[in-house]
Protein backbone atom coordinates (compact mmCIF):
# COMPACT_ATOMS: atom_id res chain seq x y z
CA UNK A 1 0.00 0.00 0.00
CA UNK A 2 1.38 3.42 -0.84
CA UNK A 3 1.98 5.91 1.96
CA UNK A 4 -0.50 8.39 0.58
CA UNK A 5 -3.27 5.86 0.34
CA UNK A 6 -2.59 4.65 3.85
CA UNK A 7 -2.71 8.21 5.15
CA UNK A 8 -5.98 8.82 3.36
CA UNK A 9 -7.37 5.66 4.88
CA UNK A 10 -6.19 6.66 8.36
CA UNK A 11 -7.82 10.02 7.91
CA UNK A 12 -11.17 8.58 6.85
CA UNK A 13 -10.90 6.05 9.67
CA UNK A 14 -10.37 8.69 12.31
CA UNK A 15 -13.14 10.80 10.79
CA UNK A 16 -15.50 7.83 11.05
CA UNK A 17 -14.51 7.35 14.69
CA UNK A 18 -15.14 10.99 15.48
CA UNK A 19 -18.55 10.85 13.83
CA UNK A 20 -19.57 7.69 15.71
CA UNK A 21 -18.33 8.95 19.07
CA UNK A 22 -19.86 12.39 18.62
CA UNK A 23 -23.18 10.83 17.70
CA UNK A 24 -23.30 8.83 20.92
CA UNK A 25 -22.06 11.75 22.97
CA UNK A 26 -24.88 13.94 21.69
CA UNK A 27 -27.31 11.12 22.43
CA UNK A 28 -25.94 10.85 25.97
CA UNK A 29 -26.33 14.55 26.60
CA UNK A 30 -29.64 15.17 24.87
CA UNK A 31 -31.95 14.41 27.82
CA UNK A 32 -29.97 16.80 30.00
CA UNK A 33 -30.04 19.46 27.29
CA UNK A 34 -33.77 18.93 26.90
CA UNK A 35 -34.27 19.26 30.65
CA UNK A 36 -32.26 22.45 30.77
CA UNK A 37 -33.80 24.30 27.82
CA UNK A 38 -37.36 23.22 28.64
CA UNK A 39 -37.03 24.37 32.24
CA UNK A 40 -36.29 27.90 30.97
CA UNK A 41 -39.22 28.10 28.53
CA UNK A 42 -42.77 29.23 29.03
CA UNK A 43 -45.40 26.62 28.23
CA UNK A 44 -46.21 28.38 24.98
CA UNK A 45 -42.57 28.50 23.93
CA UNK A 46 -42.19 24.83 24.80
CA UNK A 47 -45.14 23.81 22.64
CA UNK A 48 -43.92 26.04 19.83
CA UNK A 49 -40.51 24.41 19.63
CA UNK A 50 -39.14 21.68 21.87
CA UNK A 51 -35.53 21.76 20.67
CA UNK A 52 -34.38 25.34 20.41
CA UNK A 53 -32.68 27.40 23.06
CA UNK A 54 -35.28 29.30 25.08
CA UNK A 55 -36.19 32.40 23.02
CA UNK A 56 -37.26 34.28 26.16
CA UNK A 57 -35.59 32.52 29.13
CA UNK A 58 -37.65 32.62 32.32
CA UNK A 59 -37.13 31.31 35.83
CA UNK A 60 -40.82 31.00 36.76
CA UNK A 61 -40.74 27.24 36.31
CA UNK A 62 -38.34 26.85 39.18
CA UNK A 63 -40.69 28.81 41.45
CA UNK A 64 -43.57 26.59 40.36
CA UNK A 65 -41.50 23.47 40.97
CA UNK A 66 -40.40 24.62 44.43
CA UNK A 67 -43.93 25.57 45.39
CA UNK A 68 -45.61 22.38 44.24
CA UNK A 69 -45.50 18.77 45.35
CA UNK A 70 -43.74 19.49 48.64
CA UNK A 71 -40.53 19.76 46.69
CA UNK A 72 -38.35 21.12 49.47
CA UNK A 73 -39.54 18.54 52.01
CA UNK A 74 -38.69 15.79 49.57
CA UNK A 75 -35.32 17.28 48.86
CA UNK A 76 -34.67 17.34 52.62
CA UNK A 77 -35.88 13.74 53.04
CA UNK A 78 -33.51 12.55 50.33
CA UNK A 79 -30.66 14.48 51.92
CA UNK A 80 -31.33 13.05 55.40
CA UNK A 81 -31.42 9.49 54.12
CA UNK A 82 -28.28 10.00 52.05
CA UNK A 83 -26.23 11.50 54.86
CA UNK A 84 -27.45 9.00 57.46
CA UNK A 85 -27.02 5.85 55.41
CA UNK A 86 -23.71 6.85 53.86
CA UNK A 87 -22.06 7.94 57.12
CA UNK A 88 -23.17 4.92 59.14
CA UNK A 89 -22.40 2.36 56.45
CA UNK A 90 -18.95 3.89 56.00
CA UNK A 91 -18.20 3.56 59.70
CA UNK A 92 -19.40 -0.04 59.92
CA UNK A 93 -17.64 -0.97 56.68
CA UNK A 94 -14.29 0.45 57.80
CA UNK A 95 -14.38 -1.56 61.03
CA UNK A 96 -15.13 -4.78 59.16
CA UNK A 97 -12.57 -4.03 56.47
CA UNK A 98 -9.89 -3.63 59.14
CA UNK A 99 -10.55 -7.19 60.28
CA UNK A 100 -10.55 -8.53 56.72
CA UNK A 101 -7.43 -6.68 55.64
CA UNK A 102 -5.25 -6.95 58.72
CA UNK A 103 -6.28 -9.87 60.90
CA UNK A 104 -6.31 -13.62 60.51
CA UNK A 105 -9.33 -15.63 61.57
CA UNK A 106 -10.91 -18.92 60.55
CA UNK A 107 -13.35 -18.76 57.63
CA UNK A 108 -12.12 -15.35 56.51
CA UNK A 109 -11.94 -16.12 52.82
CA UNK A 110 -15.35 -17.79 52.74
CA UNK A 111 -16.96 -14.97 54.65
CA UNK A 112 -15.42 -12.37 52.35
CA UNK A 113 -16.56 -14.16 49.21
CA UNK A 114 -20.02 -14.65 50.61
CA UNK A 115 -20.22 -10.94 51.27
CA UNK A 116 -18.96 -10.14 47.78
CA UNK A 117 -21.77 -12.20 46.29
CA UNK A 118 -24.30 -10.04 48.15
CA UNK A 119 -23.14 -7.10 46.04
CA UNK A 120 -25.37 -8.11 43.15
CA UNK A 121 -28.37 -9.53 45.01
CA UNK A 122 -31.30 -7.45 43.72
CA UNK A 123 -33.02 -5.48 46.51
CA UNK A 124 -36.44 -6.44 45.16
CA UNK A 125 -35.86 -9.93 46.55
CA UNK A 126 -35.69 -8.70 50.14
CA UNK A 127 -38.45 -6.15 49.90
CA UNK A 128 -41.43 -8.37 50.78
CA UNK A 129 -40.04 -10.03 53.93
CA UNK A 130 -38.43 -6.77 55.05
CA UNK A 131 -41.74 -4.99 54.73
CA UNK A 132 -43.54 -7.64 56.78
CA UNK A 133 -40.89 -7.31 59.49
CA UNK A 134 -40.76 -3.52 59.42
CA UNK A 135 -44.51 -3.29 59.83
CA UNK A 136 -44.26 -5.44 62.93
CA UNK A 137 -41.44 -3.31 64.32
CA UNK A 138 -43.25 -0.07 63.50
CA UNK A 139 -40.40 1.07 61.24
CA UNK A 140 -42.39 1.73 58.07
CA UNK A 141 -42.52 5.46 57.26
CA UNK A 142 -39.48 6.20 59.43
CA UNK A 143 -36.03 7.39 58.43
CA UNK A 144 -34.45 4.76 60.72
CA UNK A 145 -36.12 1.86 58.93
CA UNK A 146 -35.00 2.93 55.47
CA UNK A 147 -31.52 3.94 56.63
CA UNK A 148 -31.17 0.47 58.16
CA UNK A 149 -32.00 -1.19 54.85
CA UNK A 150 -29.72 1.13 52.89
CA UNK A 151 -26.81 0.43 55.25
CA UNK A 152 -27.23 -3.30 54.70
CA UNK A 153 -27.35 -2.84 50.92
CA UNK A 154 -24.33 -0.54 50.84
CA UNK A 155 -22.15 -2.67 53.11
CA UNK A 156 -20.93 -5.43 50.78
CA UNK A 157 -19.42 -3.03 48.27
CA UNK A 158 -18.13 -0.68 50.96
CA UNK A 159 -16.37 -3.43 52.91
CA UNK A 160 -14.87 -4.71 49.67
CA UNK A 161 -13.53 -1.28 48.68
CA UNK A 162 -12.08 -0.49 52.10
CA UNK A 163 -10.53 -3.96 52.48
CA UNK A 164 -8.74 -3.53 49.17
CA UNK A 165 -7.52 -0.13 50.22
CA UNK A 166 -6.35 -1.14 53.69
CA UNK A 167 -4.33 -3.94 52.10
CA UNK A 168 -2.33 -1.42 50.11
CA UNK A 169 -1.10 0.36 53.25
CA UNK A 170 2.41 -0.92 53.97
CA UNK A 171 2.65 -3.46 56.75
CA UNK A 172 5.71 -1.71 58.21
CA UNK A 173 3.79 1.42 59.13
CA UNK A 174 1.26 -0.57 61.10
CA UNK A 175 3.88 -2.75 62.76
CA UNK A 176 5.98 0.22 63.81
CA UNK A 177 2.93 1.72 65.48
CA UNK A 178 2.21 -1.52 67.31
CA UNK A 179 5.78 -1.64 68.61
CA UNK A 180 5.40 1.92 69.83
CA UNK A 181 2.55 0.66 71.98
CA UNK A 182 -0.44 1.52 69.82
CA UNK A 183 -3.54 -0.60 70.56
CA UNK A 184 -5.30 -2.33 67.68
CA UNK A 185 -8.05 0.26 67.74
CA UNK A 186 -5.35 2.94 67.94
CA UNK A 187 -3.83 1.61 64.72
CA UNK A 188 -7.24 1.79 63.08
CA UNK A 189 -8.10 5.30 64.17
CA UNK A 190 -4.65 6.92 64.07
CA UNK A 191 -2.91 5.14 61.20
CA UNK A 192 -5.32 3.47 58.81
CA UNK A 193 -8.17 5.97 58.72
CA UNK A 194 -6.05 9.11 58.18
CA UNK A 195 -4.26 7.36 55.30
CA UNK A 196 -7.54 6.31 53.71
CA UNK A 197 -8.94 9.67 52.65
CA UNK A 198 -8.99 8.84 48.91
CA UNK A 199 -10.91 5.60 49.44
CA UNK A 200 -13.30 7.23 51.89
CA UNK A 201 -14.05 10.06 49.46
CA UNK A 202 -14.60 7.62 46.61
CA UNK A 203 -16.93 5.50 48.67
CA UNK A 204 -18.85 8.50 49.98
CA UNK A 205 -19.36 9.74 46.44
CA UNK A 206 -20.65 6.49 44.92
CA UNK A 207 -22.75 5.53 47.93
CA UNK A 208 -24.36 8.98 48.06
CA UNK A 209 -25.14 8.67 44.38
CA UNK A 210 -26.77 5.30 44.97
CA UNK A 211 -28.92 6.40 47.91
CA UNK A 212 -29.91 9.68 46.23
CA UNK A 213 -31.07 7.81 43.11
CA UNK A 214 -32.73 4.86 44.86
CA UNK A 215 -36.40 4.39 44.03
CA UNK A 216 -37.83 0.98 44.94
CA UNK A 217 -37.17 0.91 48.69
CA UNK A 218 -38.05 4.56 49.17
CA UNK A 219 -41.29 3.96 47.30
CA UNK A 220 -42.33 1.03 49.47
CA UNK A 221 -41.07 1.98 52.89
CA UNK A 222 -41.84 5.72 52.85
CA UNK A 223 -45.42 5.97 51.70
CA UNK A 224 -46.65 8.79 53.88
CA UNK A 225 -46.68 11.96 51.83
CA UNK A 226 -44.38 14.06 54.02
CA UNK A 227 -41.83 11.22 54.19
CA UNK A 228 -41.49 10.70 50.42
CA UNK A 229 -38.12 11.21 48.75
CA UNK A 230 -37.36 13.32 45.73
CA UNK A 231 -37.11 10.33 43.40
CA UNK A 232 -40.45 8.96 44.54
CA UNK A 233 -41.99 12.37 44.00
CA UNK A 234 -40.51 12.49 40.51
CA UNK A 235 -41.62 8.97 39.66
CA UNK A 236 -45.22 9.76 40.50
CA UNK A 237 -45.30 12.95 38.40
CA UNK A 238 -46.05 11.19 35.14
CA UNK A 239 -49.26 9.63 36.37
CA UNK A 240 -50.88 13.00 36.99
CA UNK A 241 -53.42 14.02 34.42
CA UNK A 242 -52.41 17.63 34.08
CA UNK A 243 -48.71 17.98 33.47
CA UNK A 244 -46.81 21.23 33.31
CA UNK A 245 -43.78 19.94 31.43
CA UNK A 246 -41.49 22.99 31.77
CA UNK A 247 -42.10 23.08 35.54
CA UNK A 248 -41.53 19.34 35.77
CA UNK A 249 -38.26 19.76 33.90
CA UNK A 250 -37.21 22.48 36.31
CA UNK A 251 -37.86 20.10 39.21
CA UNK A 252 -35.92 17.31 37.50
CA UNK A 253 -33.04 19.64 36.82
CA UNK A 254 -32.80 20.60 40.48
CA UNK A 255 -32.90 16.92 41.46
CA UNK A 256 -30.21 16.00 38.94
CA UNK A 257 -27.88 18.97 39.08
CA UNK A 258 -26.19 18.00 42.39
CA UNK A 259 -25.02 14.79 40.74
CA UNK A 260 -23.80 16.50 37.57
CA UNK A 261 -21.90 19.18 39.49
CA UNK A 262 -20.34 16.61 41.81
CA UNK A 263 -19.34 14.59 38.76
CA UNK A 264 -17.78 17.56 36.97
CA UNK A 265 -15.51 18.23 39.94
CA UNK A 266 -14.81 14.72 41.13
CA UNK A 267 -14.90 12.66 37.97
CA UNK A 268 -12.04 10.41 39.03
CA UNK A 269 -13.79 9.44 42.26
CA UNK A 270 -16.88 8.36 40.36
CA UNK A 271 -14.91 6.37 37.84
CA UNK A 272 -12.61 4.82 40.42
CA UNK A 273 -15.50 4.00 42.73
CA UNK A 274 -17.95 2.65 40.21
CA UNK A 275 -15.58 0.44 38.32
CA UNK A 276 -13.70 -0.35 41.52
CA UNK A 277 -15.80 -3.46 41.88
CA UNK A 278 -14.41 -4.84 38.67
CA UNK A 279 -10.91 -3.62 37.91
CA UNK A 280 -8.34 -2.83 40.50
Amino acid at each position, binding site marked *: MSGARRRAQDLSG*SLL*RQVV*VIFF*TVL*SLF*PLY*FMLVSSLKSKADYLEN*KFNLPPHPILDNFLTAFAGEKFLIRFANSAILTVGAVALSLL*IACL*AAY*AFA*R*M*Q*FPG*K*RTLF*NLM*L*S*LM*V*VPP*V*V*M*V*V*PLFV*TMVRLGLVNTYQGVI*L*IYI*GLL*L*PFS*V*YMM*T*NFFQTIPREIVEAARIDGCS*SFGVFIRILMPLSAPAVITLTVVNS*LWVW*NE*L*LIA*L*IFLQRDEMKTL*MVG*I*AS*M*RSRIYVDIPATMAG*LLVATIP*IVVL*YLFGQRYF*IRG*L*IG*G*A*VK
Partner: protein
Amino acid sequence: MQYRKHEPWLYLAPALVMLLAVFGYPVVRLIILSLQRPKGGVPIFVGLGNYQLLFRDDVFLQAVSNNLKLLLTVPVTVGLALVLAVFLFERIKGWRLYRMTLFLPYLLPIAAVGLVFSYIFQLSGVLNDFLNAVGAGALAQDWLGSTTLALPTVMFVIIWKEVGFGVVLFLARLMSVEEELFDAARVDGANWWQLQRHVTVPQLATVIEFFTVISIITVLSWVFGYVFVMTSGGPGNATMVTELYVYLMGFRYNQMNLAAAVSALLLLVTGVFIFLELRLRERSDLGLVS
Protein backbone atom coordinates in the same frame (compact mmCIF):
# COMPACT_ATOMS: atom_id res chain seq x y z
CA MET B 1 1.17 -8.90 63.70
CA GLN B 2 -0.66 -10.40 66.63
CA TYR B 3 -4.27 -9.78 67.49
CA ARG B 4 -6.21 -11.47 70.24
CA LYS B 5 -8.38 -14.29 69.05
CA HIS B 6 -11.78 -12.70 69.51
CA GLU B 7 -10.64 -9.34 68.17
CA PRO B 8 -11.56 -9.73 64.49
CA TRP B 9 -15.12 -10.62 65.44
CA LEU B 10 -15.43 -7.45 67.47
CA TYR B 11 -14.70 -5.41 64.37
CA LEU B 12 -16.87 -7.57 62.15
CA ALA B 13 -19.86 -7.68 64.48
CA PRO B 14 -21.71 -4.52 63.39
CA ALA B 15 -21.40 -5.42 59.71
CA LEU B 16 -22.43 -9.02 60.27
CA VAL B 17 -25.48 -7.98 62.29
CA MET B 18 -26.56 -5.58 59.54
CA LEU B 19 -26.02 -8.13 56.79
CA LEU B 20 -27.96 -10.76 58.67
CA ALA B 21 -30.81 -8.30 59.25
CA VAL B 22 -31.00 -7.10 55.64
CA PHE B 23 -30.01 -10.22 53.69
CA GLY B 24 -29.93 -13.30 55.92
CA TYR B 25 -33.15 -13.10 57.83
CA PRO B 26 -35.26 -11.80 54.90
CA VAL B 27 -34.16 -14.67 52.67
CA VAL B 28 -35.27 -17.26 55.24
CA ARG B 29 -38.49 -15.36 55.88
CA LEU B 30 -39.03 -15.07 52.12
CA ILE B 31 -38.93 -18.81 51.60
CA ILE B 32 -41.34 -19.43 54.49
CA LEU B 33 -43.73 -16.74 53.22
CA SER B 34 -43.67 -18.21 49.73
CA LEU B 35 -44.89 -21.55 51.10
CA GLN B 36 -47.78 -20.05 53.05
CA ARG B 37 -51.17 -18.56 52.35
CA PRO B 38 -53.41 -16.66 54.75
CA LYS B 39 -56.62 -18.41 55.69
CA GLY B 40 -58.97 -16.61 58.02
CA GLY B 41 -56.13 -14.28 59.00
CA VAL B 42 -53.79 -17.15 59.93
CA PRO B 43 -50.95 -18.24 57.63
CA ILE B 44 -51.20 -21.90 56.69
CA PHE B 45 -48.63 -24.06 54.91
CA VAL B 46 -49.56 -24.72 51.27
CA GLY B 47 -46.36 -26.27 49.95
CA LEU B 48 -45.68 -25.18 46.39
CA GLY B 49 -49.26 -23.97 45.94
CA ASN B 50 -48.23 -20.36 45.37
CA TYR B 51 -45.72 -21.38 42.75
CA GLN B 52 -48.31 -23.46 40.91
CA LEU B 53 -50.65 -20.50 40.97
CA LEU B 54 -47.94 -18.27 39.48
CA PHE B 55 -47.32 -20.50 36.51
CA ARG B 56 -50.99 -20.36 35.66
CA ASP B 57 -51.03 -16.56 35.80
CA ASP B 58 -50.70 -15.02 32.35
CA VAL B 59 -49.47 -11.72 33.74
CA PHE B 60 -46.61 -13.45 35.52
CA LEU B 61 -45.71 -15.44 32.42
CA GLN B 62 -45.77 -12.26 30.38
CA ALA B 63 -43.47 -10.62 32.94
CA VAL B 64 -40.98 -13.50 32.70
CA SER B 65 -41.07 -13.45 28.92
CA ASN B 66 -40.47 -9.69 28.91
CA ASN B 67 -37.45 -10.07 31.18
CA LEU B 68 -36.12 -12.67 28.77
CA LYS B 69 -36.70 -10.32 25.84
CA LEU B 70 -34.75 -7.67 27.70
CA LEU B 71 -31.74 -10.00 27.47
CA LEU B 72 -31.54 -8.85 23.85
CA THR B 73 -30.12 -5.58 25.12
CA VAL B 74 -27.08 -7.34 26.57
CA PRO B 75 -25.18 -8.06 23.33
CA VAL B 76 -26.03 -4.56 22.07
CA THR B 77 -24.82 -2.90 25.26
CA VAL B 78 -21.63 -4.95 25.41
CA GLY B 79 -20.86 -4.56 21.71
CA LEU B 80 -21.50 -0.85 21.63
CA ALA B 81 -19.44 -0.29 24.77
CA LEU B 82 -16.61 -2.27 23.22
CA VAL B 83 -16.59 -0.26 19.99
CA LEU B 84 -16.73 3.07 21.80
CA ALA B 85 -14.02 2.03 24.26
CA VAL B 86 -11.71 0.96 21.43
CA PHE B 87 -12.29 4.25 19.61
CA LEU B 88 -11.53 6.25 22.73
CA PHE B 89 -8.50 4.09 23.43
CA GLU B 90 -7.11 5.03 20.03
CA ARG B 91 -6.85 8.49 21.60
CA ILE B 92 -9.12 10.26 19.17
CA LYS B 93 -9.18 13.98 19.73
CA GLY B 94 -11.10 14.88 22.87
CA TRP B 95 -11.32 11.31 24.21
CA ARG B 96 -11.27 12.46 27.83
CA LEU B 97 -14.28 14.69 27.23
CA TYR B 98 -16.09 11.89 25.41
CA ARG B 99 -15.36 9.46 28.22
CA MET B 100 -16.81 11.93 30.67
CA THR B 101 -20.02 12.53 28.75
CA LEU B 102 -20.58 8.91 27.76
CA PHE B 103 -20.37 7.90 31.42
CA LEU B 104 -22.84 10.54 32.58
CA PRO B 105 -26.09 8.66 31.80
CA TYR B 106 -24.99 5.86 34.10
CA LEU B 107 -24.97 8.29 37.02
CA LEU B 108 -28.31 9.98 36.47
CA PRO B 109 -31.31 8.85 38.52
CA ILE B 110 -33.51 6.40 36.64
CA ALA B 111 -36.62 8.20 37.89
CA ALA B 112 -35.54 11.46 36.26
CA VAL B 113 -34.19 9.85 33.10
CA GLY B 114 -37.33 7.77 32.72
CA LEU B 115 -39.56 10.80 33.05
CA VAL B 116 -37.56 12.80 30.51
CA PHE B 117 -37.63 9.93 28.05
CA SER B 118 -41.35 9.49 28.49
CA TYR B 119 -41.75 13.11 27.30
CA ILE B 120 -39.37 12.47 24.46
CA PHE B 121 -41.22 9.36 23.32
CA GLN B 122 -44.84 10.38 23.92
CA LEU B 123 -47.16 10.85 20.96
CA SER B 124 -46.80 14.63 20.95
CA GLY B 125 -43.25 14.31 22.21
CA VAL B 126 -39.86 15.50 21.13
CA LEU B 127 -38.95 12.58 18.90
CA ASN B 128 -42.14 12.76 16.85
CA ASP B 129 -41.81 16.54 16.54
CA PHE B 130 -38.31 15.98 15.25
CA LEU B 131 -39.43 13.36 12.73
CA ASN B 132 -42.14 15.70 11.48
CA ALA B 133 -39.71 18.59 11.22
CA VAL B 134 -37.26 16.66 9.05
CA GLY B 135 -40.06 15.42 6.82
CA ALA B 136 -40.09 11.88 8.18
CA GLY B 137 -43.47 12.27 9.82
CA ALA B 138 -44.50 8.88 8.48
CA LEU B 139 -42.12 7.30 10.98
CA ALA B 140 -43.75 8.99 13.97
CA GLN B 141 -45.14 6.46 16.41
CA ASP B 142 -46.76 6.23 19.81
CA TRP B 143 -43.48 4.86 21.14
CA LEU B 144 -44.57 4.07 24.68
CA GLY B 145 -48.27 3.65 23.98
CA SER B 146 -48.11 0.85 21.47
CA THR B 147 -47.99 -2.76 22.65
CA THR B 148 -45.40 -3.70 20.06
CA LEU B 149 -43.12 -0.67 20.47
CA ALA B 150 -43.24 -0.03 24.22
CA LEU B 151 -40.81 -2.78 25.20
CA PRO B 152 -38.23 -1.95 22.50
CA THR B 153 -38.45 1.70 23.56
CA VAL B 154 -37.75 0.75 27.17
CA MET B 155 -34.86 -1.37 25.90
CA PHE B 156 -33.42 1.64 24.14
CA VAL B 157 -33.43 3.61 27.38
CA ILE B 158 -31.78 0.74 29.29
CA ILE B 159 -29.00 0.56 26.71
CA TRP B 160 -28.68 4.35 26.73
CA LYS B 161 -28.08 4.31 30.46
CA GLU B 162 -25.92 1.20 30.85
CA VAL B 163 -23.53 1.53 27.94
CA GLY B 164 -21.34 4.19 29.56
CA PHE B 165 -20.43 1.88 32.40
CA GLY B 166 -19.07 -0.64 29.90
CA VAL B 167 -17.11 2.03 28.03
CA VAL B 168 -15.36 3.23 31.17
CA LEU B 169 -14.77 -0.31 32.39
CA PHE B 170 -13.23 -1.47 29.11
CA LEU B 171 -11.21 1.68 28.70
CA ALA B 172 -9.74 1.36 32.19
CA ARG B 173 -8.68 -2.20 31.45
CA LEU B 174 -7.22 -1.29 28.05
CA MET B 175 -5.15 1.47 29.55
CA SER B 176 -3.53 -1.03 31.88
CA VAL B 177 -2.51 -3.30 28.98
CA GLU B 178 1.11 -2.92 28.09
CA GLU B 179 1.54 -0.71 25.06
CA GLU B 180 4.19 -3.08 23.65
CA LEU B 181 1.54 -5.71 22.95
CA PHE B 182 -0.19 -3.38 20.53
CA ASP B 183 3.09 -2.14 19.07
CA ALA B 184 4.33 -5.69 18.50
CA ALA B 185 1.15 -6.59 16.63
CA ARG B 186 1.43 -3.45 14.49
CA VAL B 187 5.04 -4.18 13.69
CA ASP B 188 3.98 -7.64 12.60
CA GLY B 189 1.72 -5.91 10.07
CA ALA B 190 -1.62 -6.56 11.75
CA ASN B 191 -4.42 -4.46 10.31
CA TRP B 192 -7.07 -2.80 12.50
CA TRP B 193 -9.38 -5.81 12.61
CA GLN B 194 -6.59 -8.25 13.33
CA LEU B 195 -5.33 -5.98 16.09
CA GLN B 196 -8.76 -5.95 17.75
CA ARG B 197 -9.31 -9.66 17.31
CA HIS B 198 -5.92 -10.86 18.46
CA VAL B 199 -4.94 -8.26 21.03
CA THR B 200 -7.78 -6.09 22.27
CA VAL B 201 -10.52 -8.67 22.72
CA PRO B 202 -8.32 -11.35 24.34
CA GLN B 203 -6.90 -8.73 26.70
CA LEU B 204 -10.41 -7.63 27.63
CA ALA B 205 -11.86 -11.13 27.85
CA THR B 206 -12.38 -11.28 31.61
CA VAL B 207 -13.77 -7.76 31.79
CA ILE B 208 -16.14 -8.48 28.90
CA GLU B 209 -17.37 -11.59 30.70
CA PHE B 210 -17.79 -9.61 33.90
CA PHE B 211 -19.74 -6.82 32.19
CA THR B 212 -21.90 -9.36 30.35
CA VAL B 213 -22.85 -11.12 33.58
CA ILE B 214 -23.54 -7.80 35.30
CA SER B 215 -25.72 -6.70 32.37
CA ILE B 216 -27.66 -9.96 32.48
CA ILE B 217 -28.29 -9.56 36.21
CA THR B 218 -29.34 -5.96 35.54
CA VAL B 219 -32.01 -6.76 32.95
CA LEU B 220 -33.32 -9.72 34.92
CA SER B 221 -33.64 -7.97 38.24
CA TRP B 222 -32.74 -4.28 38.30
CA VAL B 223 -35.12 -2.69 35.76
CA PHE B 224 -37.97 -1.76 38.08
CA GLY B 225 -37.28 1.98 37.87
CA TYR B 226 -37.39 2.19 34.08
CA VAL B 227 -40.69 0.40 33.76
CA PHE B 228 -42.34 1.93 36.80
CA VAL B 229 -41.63 5.47 35.63
CA MET B 230 -42.02 5.16 31.86
CA THR B 231 -44.92 2.75 31.38
CA SER B 232 -46.09 1.29 34.72
CA GLY B 233 -45.99 -2.04 32.90
CA GLY B 234 -48.36 -0.95 30.15
CA PRO B 235 -49.92 -0.64 27.72
CA GLY B 236 -51.82 -3.71 28.87
CA ASN B 237 -49.00 -5.79 30.26
CA ALA B 238 -46.68 -5.13 27.34
CA THR B 239 -43.82 -3.99 29.56
CA MET B 240 -44.63 -5.95 32.72
CA VAL B 241 -41.47 -7.32 34.35
CA THR B 242 -41.05 -9.62 37.35
CA GLU B 243 -39.93 -6.85 39.70
CA LEU B 244 -42.99 -4.76 38.91
CA TYR B 245 -45.11 -7.88 39.37
CA VAL B 246 -43.62 -8.33 42.86
CA TYR B 247 -44.35 -4.70 43.65
CA LEU B 248 -47.93 -4.82 42.39
CA MET B 249 -48.74 -8.16 44.02
CA GLY B 250 -47.18 -7.27 47.33
CA PHE B 251 -48.04 -3.61 47.71
CA ARG B 252 -51.05 -2.94 45.50
CA TYR B 253 -53.08 -6.15 45.67
CA ASN B 254 -51.85 -7.27 49.08
CA GLN B 255 -50.82 -10.73 47.87
CA MET B 256 -47.65 -10.92 49.96
CA ASN B 257 -47.30 -14.67 49.62
CA LEU B 258 -47.45 -14.62 45.84
CA ALA B 259 -45.00 -11.73 45.82
CA ALA B 260 -42.70 -13.76 48.06
CA ALA B 261 -42.88 -16.73 45.68
CA VAL B 262 -41.85 -14.52 42.72
CA SER B 263 -39.02 -13.01 44.77
CA ALA B 264 -37.78 -16.48 45.68
CA LEU B 265 -37.73 -17.48 42.01
CA LEU B 266 -35.92 -14.27 41.14
CA LEU B 267 -33.34 -14.99 43.82
CA LEU B 268 -32.85 -18.48 42.44
CA VAL B 269 -32.27 -17.21 38.90
CA THR B 270 -29.98 -14.35 39.86
CA GLY B 271 -28.24 -16.72 42.27
CA VAL B 272 -26.95 -18.67 39.29
CA PHE B 273 -25.47 -15.54 37.76
CA ILE B 274 -24.15 -14.29 41.07
CA PHE B 275 -22.31 -17.59 41.44
CA LEU B 276 -20.96 -17.18 37.90
CA GLU B 277 -19.80 -13.67 38.68
CA LEU B 278 -18.03 -14.87 41.79
CA ARG B 279 -16.23 -17.55 39.82
CA LEU B 280 -15.12 -14.97 37.26
CA ARG B 281 -13.76 -12.81 40.02
CA GLU B 282 -11.83 -15.70 41.50
CA ARG B 283 -10.41 -16.68 38.15
CA SER B 284 -9.33 -13.19 37.27
CA ASP B 285 -8.01 -12.84 40.80
CA LEU B 286 -9.92 -9.67 41.43
CA GLY B 287 -10.85 -8.65 44.89
CA LEU B 288 -9.74 -11.64 46.92
CA VAL B 289 -8.29 -11.35 50.35
CA SER B 290 -4.82 -12.77 50.41
